[in-house]
C-alpha cells in the first residue's frame, strides 16, 4: 500500500499551496497565542531577573570575606564553588557556614565568621580542602592562577598542636588573611589588664581544641576559665607557631608599652579574633589580606 502511494508524490506536494492558503486563525485562537507569548515573556523576565540577583555576590566581592582555608581568590572561588557544603560537614568546630540570600557572598557558598567561630585547625590537616570536590579550596593553586604578592606563606605553617609529630606542618600554601590589631585602644594587653573567667563569657558558643585539655576533641570555650595577670590570650591560643607574640613597642606618644604583634607566619585563621576577651574584639582578621613587610 505504502509503496503504491509513493509515486503519488506530486499530489502531496500540491497540497502545500492549500496549506499556505489555510484560513486565518480565529480571533480567540490569536488571543490565546498572544496571551501565551506574554506569559512566556513574563516568566522569562521573572527568572532572568531573579538570576541577575545572583550576581550580587560578584558586586560585593570587592568587600573581602573570610573564606575557608585554601580558598582561591574571590572571583575564582565564586566561579568554582559548587555549593555542596562538604567543607561544612568535615569541619570539627563548625567554623564554616553557608551564606544565605542576604549575606551577599553567594547563596550556598561557604564563609567563616571568625568572631563567632574561628577555624582552629583542630582537624590537624585542613580537611575542608581535602573534601572540596571542585578545587575551590586547594592545597596548591593550578599554574594558571597567579598568587597575589604576599599571599603565599614563606614556609608551611607549623601547627603547635603537632609540633612534636614527624610532620608538624599544615598543608597550606597561602594565607586566608592577616590578623590586625584594629582596636588597640581597648586591647587588654596594651592596657596591662588581665583576664579572669571564660574569655568570652558563659554564653559564648564557640569551640576550640585545647591541646592541654584534649588533644583530639574541641571543647566549648565558655567552659575554659582563664586567670592571667596580663592578657595574652591571642598569643596563648594561636595555633600557628611564630604567628603572633607580645612585644614591647613604641606607642604613638613615644612611650614604651606591651602589644600583640603579628608576624609573617600568620595564616589568618581567626582564633585570636574569636578568643579576644574585649567587646568588640581588639584584634581582627582582615580577610584576603596579604603580608606587607
Amino acid at each position, binding site marked *: 500500500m505504502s509503496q503504491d502511494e509513493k509515486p503519488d508524490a506530486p499530489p502531496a506536494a500540491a497540497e502545500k499551496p492549500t496549506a499556505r492558503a489555510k484560513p486565518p486563525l480565529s480571533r480567540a485562537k490569536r488571543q490565546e497565542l498572544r496571551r*501565551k507569548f506574554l506569559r512566556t515573556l513574563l*516568566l522569562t523576565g521573572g*527568572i532572568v531577573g531573579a538570576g541577575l540577583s*545572583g*550576581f550580587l555576590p560578584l558586586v560585593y566581592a570587592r568587600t573581602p570575606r573570610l573564606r575557608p582555608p585554601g580558598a582561591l581568590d574571590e572571583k575564582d572561588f565564586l566561579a568554582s564553588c*559548587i555549593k555542596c557544603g562538604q567543607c561544612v560537614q568535615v569541619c570539627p568546630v563548625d567554623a564554616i557556614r553557608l551564606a544565605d540570600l542576604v549575606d551577599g557572598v*553567594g547563596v550556598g557558598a561557604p564563609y567563616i565568621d571568625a568572631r563567632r567561630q574561628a577555624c582552629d585547625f583542630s582537624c590537624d590537616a585542613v580537611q575542608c580542602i581535602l573534601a*572540596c570536590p571542585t578545587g575551590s579550596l586547594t592545597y596548591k593553586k*593550578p599554574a594558571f592562577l597567579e598568587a597575589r604578592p604576599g599571599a603565599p606563606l614563606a614556609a608551611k605553617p607549623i601547627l603547635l598542636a603537632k609540633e612534636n609529630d614527624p610532620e608538624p606542618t599544615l598543608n597550606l600554601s597561602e594565607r586566608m588573611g592577616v590578623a590586625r590589631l584594629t582596636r588597640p585602644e581597648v586591647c587588654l594587653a596594651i592596657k596591662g589588664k588581665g583576664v579572669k573567667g571564660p574569655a568570652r563569657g558563659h554564653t559564648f558558643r564557640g569551640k576550640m581544641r585545647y591541646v592541654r585539655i584534649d588533644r583530639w576533641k574541641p571543647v566549648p570555650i565558655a567552659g575554659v576559665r582563664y586567670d592571667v595577670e596580663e592578657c595574652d590570650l591571642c598569643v596563648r591560643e594561636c595555633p600557628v607557631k611564630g604567628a603572633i607574640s607580645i612585644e614591647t613597642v613604641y606607642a604613638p606618644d613615644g612611650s614604651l608599652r606591651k602589644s600583640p604583634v603579628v608576624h609573617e607566619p600568620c595564616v589568618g585563621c581567626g582564633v585570636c579574633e574569636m578568643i579576644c576577651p574585649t567587646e568588640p574584639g581588639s584584634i581582627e582578621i582582615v580577610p584576603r589580606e596579604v603580608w606587607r613587610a
Partner: protein
Amino acid sequence: MNTFLRKRFREQIMVMFGREPKKPEAISEPAQQIHLIKRTSNKEKLQAAAAHAEAHMNTSHKWRNRRWAVLVLVNLFFVFSYYFDIQILEGALTASRFIGFHLIDLNSALQVMLAHRNIITNLLIGTGTVLVLWILFGGRSFCSWVCPYHLLAEWAEKIHLRLVREKLVVDAPVDRRLRTVFWVVFAFLAVATGYTVYEAISPTGIVSRTLIYGPGLALLWVLALLVFEVFFVRRAWCRYACPIGLTYGVVGILSPLRIKYTLEGCFHEGNCRKVCLVPHVLDTVIKGRAVHTEVPIGPDCTRCGLCVDVCPTGSLTYDVKGLSKLL
C-alpha cells in the same frame, strides 16, 4: 419509588387480574443508557467494557509511592549522613561523596567547568560517575526520583489542579522553547561572567541545602516559584525553566531505561497525558499517531511512572532496552 416504578406497580396489579404485560411507554434515563449499551454491543464487548471501567476505578499508586519513597530516602540519607555524622553520603545534591566516591551533579559540574575553566580530577571523576549512573537509570529520572523540588512541585500541582477543577484558576501554558533558551542563557552567563549564577536560583540546590544545613531566606524564592505554579502556570519551573532537567534529558537520550508504549490495548483516552509532567513525550498515544506497535517514550520523559499507574490497559510500562532479548 419513582414515577416509572409506581406506574409499573399499578400495572402489575392489573396483570395479576389477567391483563397481558405490554411494552412500557416510558423508561428512566439510567435504564435507557444501559439498554442502549446492551443494544449496541455483544456480550464479550460488554464484559471487556466493564473490566475496563473497573480498571479505571482501581487507580494504582504503586510507582508513585515507590518513587516518593526513593526520593525521600535519598534526601534523608544526605540529611542523616551529616546530622548523625555517619559519613556515608556527604555533601548536598550539587556535589557529594558516597562512601568516598565523588558524585557531582551534571548541571552544576557543567556550570563550574564553564565558569572556572579548570577541571580538576575529582570534578571529572564525580561528573563521570554521575553521568554513567544516570545513563543507566534514565536521565531525567533524576528529576522525579531524586530532586526534592520535584516533590514540592508535585504537591503544588495537586493544589493547582484542584483550583482548576473548581474554576478558580486557569491552566496557562507557556512556550516550551523557553527552557532551551534558559539553558543557553545560564551557560552563556557562566562563561561570560565566570560565576555560576544559576546556582543562586536553583531550587534543587536551595531545597537540598535547606534539608541538610538548615533553612535560609533563599527559600523565599522557592516559595515564590511554588505560589506561581499553584496560581498561574502548572509546573512552571520543571516544564519551562529548569536547565538541570534539560541536561539530564540529554543524558536520557542514551539511556536504555524508559517507558514503553504498546499500541494494541490502548483505548486512546488520554489519561496518561493529563497526569504527565511532560505530555509532549506522550503524543504517540493519540489515536493514529503511533509509528509502530511498540514505541519507546522520548528522552524528556522523567520516568516518574504516573502514566504507568493511571493506564487502565497496561499499555504503558517500564522497559529496559534490549533486556527482553537477553532474558
